[in-house]
């Protein structure tokens, strides 16, 4: 086991000692190739559209097509923005409008009283209410 490692270490150590020159050469060569290829490819790619005019036909904008009619213009530049404006306004204002009816302690209360699960004829029941001689419990509060 240990001999194997020694055998393997041997050449590696020798390689390292011989490496500096050949590795530096390889690194420079790699860099040179990379730069050359990059420059060539970039140049060709950016120049290609100019050269390719004959192949792909007229450039963008050379054939503008038909203009917008008046109706389409109105639709696109007036109706669509107005619709977007109204939609956003509705989304913003509607929740507040729905809640406008909510109770505000400072504004008082004008509605008639409502009795849930009360007597059938509340007026008569109140008129004939007999409090009797009982002690009632409960609690009260204000806000």
């Amino acid at each position, binding site marked *: 086991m240990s001999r194997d490692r020694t055998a393997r270490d041997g050449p590696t150590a020798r390689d390292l000692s011989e490496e500096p020159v050949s590795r530096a050469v390889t690194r420079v060569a790699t860099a040179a190739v990379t730069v050359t290829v990059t420059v060539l490819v970039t140049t060709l790619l950016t120049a290609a559209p100019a050269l390719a005019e004959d192949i792909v036909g007229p450039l963008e904008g050379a054939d503008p097509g038909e203009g917008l009619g008046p109706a389409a213009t109105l639709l696109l530049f007036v109706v669509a923005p107005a619709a977007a404006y109204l939609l956003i306004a509705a989304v913003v204002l509607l929740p507040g409008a729905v809640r406008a009816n909510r109770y*505000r302690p400072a504004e008082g209360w004008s509605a008639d009283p409502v*009795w849930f699960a009360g007597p059938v004829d*509340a007026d008569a029941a109140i008129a004939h209410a007999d409090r009797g001689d009982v002690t009632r419990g*409960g609690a009260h509060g204000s806000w």
Partner: protein
Amino acid sequence: MAAGRRATGLSVAQQERIDHAVAQCREQNGLDVSVVVGDLRITDLSRFRDAAETLHAALGERAHGAVLLLVAPGQRRVEVVTGPAARRRVPDRVAALAVLSMTSAFAGGDLAGGVVDGLRQLAEAAGKRAAIPAPPSAHAALVPAGH
């Protein structure tokens, strides 16, 4: 009122919520609760408790075991009145706690939510009992300003 936009009362949805909460108290807790939302036609607020007890007595035979919850949004008063039998199930201490949570909801503008929460607290304290049938007037009835 200069603003011209006044609170006009409970919305239908709010009334339904309160109706539902009242019905639940009866069905799940066997607790006879009755809720009045509206101002009392009294100017002397020191008589508020007195007037609330009269409304409670107006429940007639039910009064003994009934809980009346009176909410006066304009007068900013809330009153819980318990009959002698109901008081054993809903002690004054529990009623006071329910009132406390209701007043904070009312001060924030949430009438129906406060009522529903308050009823839930009263019902939880009362515990579970056999359901009692719906009262003769199960749904919200408009009454002229009480007392």
